[in-house]
């Protein structure tokens, strides 16, 4: 009830206007939305590339954070979408960002503000690397992103 009303408000607002580099990709229902983002400056790591974010909302959104991760669409797809390289983004698309955790979330955040935070997280990055332990994490992780206790120990990127 809470989530549905709030999401319809956000959807209506987004159909009017979104910040540059952020576009609405699709939503088959109100529980899952996909957004496309691209970096606006000429950061060579992300040039000419569009990335797809998947938002999954619980009934308690926006009191609880949405689950947000990158998803990939193969190069053969009509709209190919890779997973951006970043020291806080695992190669399976899971993002380590404190505002997406229960502890860092605030109910005044929106899909738009989360997209902008992730966009600026990419813009600011200069490191062509995955998080430490990426291959192990990707092979063994069966948990959902919000159940993972990330250590937000790196304030530099």
């Amino acid at each position, binding site marked *: 009830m*809470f989530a549905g009303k709030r999401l319809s*408000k956000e959807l209506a*607002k987004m159909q009017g206007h979104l910040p540059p580099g952020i576009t609405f990709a699709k939503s088959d229902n109100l529980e899952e939305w996909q957004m496309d983002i691209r970096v606006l400056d000429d950061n060579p790591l992300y040039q000419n590339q569009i990335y797809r974010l998947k938002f999954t909302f619980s009934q308690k959104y926006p*009191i609880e954070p949405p689950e947000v991760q990158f998803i990939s669409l193969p190069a053969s797809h009509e709209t190919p979408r890779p997973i951006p390289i970043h020291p806080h983004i695992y190669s399976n698309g899971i993002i380590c960002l404190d505002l997406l955790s229960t502890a860092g*979330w*605030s*109910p*005044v955040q*929106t899909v738009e503000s989360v997209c902008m935070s992730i966009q600026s997280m990419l813009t600011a990055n200069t490191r062509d690397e995955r998080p430490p332990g990426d291959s192990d994490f990707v092979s063994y992780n069966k948990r959902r992103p919000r159940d993972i206790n990330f250590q937000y120990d790196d304030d530099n990127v």
Partner: protein
Amino acid sequence: MKVTFKEWNAVATWRWDMPDDDVCGICRVQFDGTCPTCKFPGDDCALLLGKCGHSFHMHCLMTWIQQEASKGLCPMCRQKFEWKGNEEDGNATQNTQDITQDTTQDIQA
């Protein structure tokens, strides 16, 4: 000519003293509208004005404050959320813990 009133009905309107386009940051509904848990706006769906300058529908803020993860903080500025009470009553401020207790009593009553 003498006129006698047999019956009259008084009608009045009121609104929150807030800018028209201001929305509650939690539910994104205008302050004059009602929060998502209420059917009608008005006295039963009050606003809370925070000492930090941020306002919300009372029900929206309480839903947030009752989450352990909120730590009692304002969703906008992450300062402790304390609301401006009615200064004339001598209750200049009341913190969210008191509100939580009041709400609980209401529910029990």
